[in-house]
């Protein structure tokens, strides 16, 4: 058989049928569900008298809407409450396992999937959420779908899909100290553009990727959609297997599973539709200055002027973005002052992210002009952080320490920016109004966000004095 890529192998294994004149049907191994993109799918299922084909392959949690304050209090927003109650009722009716509010394992769907061992190498995984790409870090083919497709998967456990093209993003060499996976992926998106990956699944390869831990790999894959790719994946290896061993829902015959998973990596000589090569040594800590994640520069650079762009679309986008962001071309990034700092989201809310941020904060105080919060990605992450005393480090420095959820990544709950407020955020989208109407978001790594909270402006974390 011809040499195949990781994508080819997972794809071939999951084609159910490919009838003439129709798109292929591919089998979906795991379906993750949250409260925002599922109610209409369940309702349509009910109206058509259909049921969920494989409830045991389907897992749900409320995350987008949930308050991050005291969970013992009722949810103040009646519309949010209704959406969460609807998820509860649907899970009960259709027999789906729900990690509910108040459940010790509730959290952001893309944090709890890997954490509980729901996500495994070689699987196809979907969720009505574009950051489903996160799960590709474990060597799965994972991508976001719309609500009609959620309904399709619930009813049939399959999806109609044309096979995507493959894009190898190879990272040569290793990241320098102080430079993180977040900086790497922002750097990659900056070069690929927000649509460079459209129609493709990215496989991240090379020494710079192999050297990353599981949490860092998830950060990288998570933001694949920000380059237009629906999925990002990394071949499973001992880092992956060590991460999964002993997880609640990991395969019981783990050795047999590992033997299977070891056959997944792309064969030597396998051909990708496209290859892009990056040098880890070129990556410095990144800060976005605009209103899409590709509008990004190094912390040691200045905000670009619109004239710097040759493409007319890029130029007008830059002008519009600078206007919205209240920034002028030529301003050094380190001159930008912040009002808010948000550490959280499915990109950067795992225990490793919180440790990195806490290390920066330890012994410092949040600037008096800044309001800062930490929102752990899951109940488990929160407990682990508290066992390690990280919550005390954050609280003593003046951070808010919250309950798990999406929170100010998209501000569907009460955690939002007010118009004009400027925020350093570890999340994944700096779109206009994403964190609150008129809010101005700069995407950075957890360490860079923590340092910005202390300094009140962006600083180059590579020169930070750790206490």
């Amino acid at each position, binding site marked *: 058989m011809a040499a195949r890529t990781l994508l080819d192998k997972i794809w071939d294994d999951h084609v*159910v*049928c490919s*009838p003439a*004149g*129709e*798109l292929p*049907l591919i*089998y979906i191994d795991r379906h993750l569900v949250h409260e*925002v*993109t599922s*109610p*209409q799918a369940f*309702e349509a299922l009910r109206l058509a008298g259909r049921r969920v*084909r*494989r409830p045991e392959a389907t897992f749900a949690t409320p995350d*987008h809407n949930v308050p991050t304050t005291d969970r013992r209090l009722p949810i103040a*927003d009646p*519309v949010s409450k*209704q*959406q969460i109650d*609807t998820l509860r009722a649907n899970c009960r009716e259709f027999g789906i396992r729900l990690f509910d509010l108040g459940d010790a394992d509730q959290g952001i769907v893309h944090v709890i999937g890997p954490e509980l061992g729901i996500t495994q190498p070689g699987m196809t995984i979907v969720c*009505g*959420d*574009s950051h489903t790409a996160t799960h590709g870090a474990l060597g799965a083919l994972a991508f*976001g*779908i*719309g*609500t*009609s*497709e959620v*309904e*399709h998967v619930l*009813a*049939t*456990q*399959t999806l*109609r899909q*044309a096979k995507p093209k493959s894009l190898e993003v190879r990272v040569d060499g290793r990241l320098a100290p102080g430079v993180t996976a977040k900086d790497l992926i922002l750097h990659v998106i900056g070069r690929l553009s*927000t*649509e460079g990956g*459209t129609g493709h699944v990215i496989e991240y390869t090379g020494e710079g990727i192999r050297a990353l831990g599981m949490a860092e790999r998830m950060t990288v894959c998570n933001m694949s*959609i920000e380059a*237009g790719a*629906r999925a990002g994946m990394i071949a499973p290896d001992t880092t992956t297997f060590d991460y999964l061993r002993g997880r609640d829902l990991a395969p019981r015959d783990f050795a047999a599973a590992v033997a299977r998973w070891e056959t997944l990596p792309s064969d030597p000589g396998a051909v990708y539709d496209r290859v892009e090569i990056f040098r880890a040594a070129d990556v410095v800590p990144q800060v976005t200055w605009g209103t*899409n994640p590709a509008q990004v520069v190094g912390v040691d650079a200045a905000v670009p002027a619109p004239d710097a762009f040759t493409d007319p*679309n*890029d130029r*007008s*986008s830059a002008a*519009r973005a600078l206007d919205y962001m209240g920034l002028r071309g030529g301003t050094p990034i380190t001159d930008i002052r912040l009002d808010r700092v948000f550490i959280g989201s499915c990109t950067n809310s795992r225990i490793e992210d919180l440790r990195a941020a806490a290390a920066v904060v330890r012994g410092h105080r949040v600037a008096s002009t800044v309001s800062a919060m930490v929102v752990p990605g899951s109940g488990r992450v929160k407990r682990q952080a508290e066992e390690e005393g990280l919550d005390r480090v954050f609280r003593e420095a003046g951070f808010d320490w919250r309950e798990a959820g999406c929170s100010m990544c*998209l*501000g*569907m709950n009460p955690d939002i920016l007010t*118009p004009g407020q400027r925020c350093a955020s570890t999340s994944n*989208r700096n*779109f*206009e*109004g*994403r964190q609150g*109407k008129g809010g101005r978001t700069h995407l950075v790594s957890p360490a860079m966000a923590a340092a910005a909270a202390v300094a009140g402006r962006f600083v180059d974390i590579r020169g930070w004095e750790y206490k």
Partner: protein
Amino acid sequence: MQPFTTHTGIVAALDRANVDTDQIIPKQFLKRIERTGFGQFLFWDWRFLPDGAPDPAFELNRAESAGASILLARRNFGCGSSREHAPWALADYGFRAVIAPTFADIFFNNCFQNGMVPIRLDEADVAELFRRAAAAAVAGGQYRMHVDLRACTVSDDAGFSRPFTVDPFRRQCLLEGLDDIGLSLQHDAAITAWEVAHGLAPVRA
């Protein structure tokens, strides 16, 4: 689903690239559990001023866009969040087709599920359409186009005509307004065979 065969309508020219689904339908409207009624919230933050009045400068609020059912935009339309609320809002507002040089994948797929055709044309053709729409507006009129999904062409009354491509299966579903879940369930035997071959217990009928 509402079938789509041919459509003639007014063009609204939204001269922006990378229009993300957060702009098409902001998050505060995603809390609803219905599939309908999203049109009133379309492009909320762009369409309305802080006092709630329509922003006269926004493209969709201009006289030449009144009653528009074909949206013209620049590159990478519909990027970002997978929310199907975006096509729901566009369709509910009255749009039946969106023309742009490129679309984000998830949005592109979501359109077909909602009786709306996403049409990819060359960047130069899209630029030409923006010119024609602007010329019509300057002359105090509106710009009309025709979309023919049977022939896969898009044209205007002044000689512009281009073919476009759509996946044949998606096209068929749209032409006939088919329920694609119903179609997929016709392959139940193949699905069960896959499950059994992969060590899963068969689903009880």
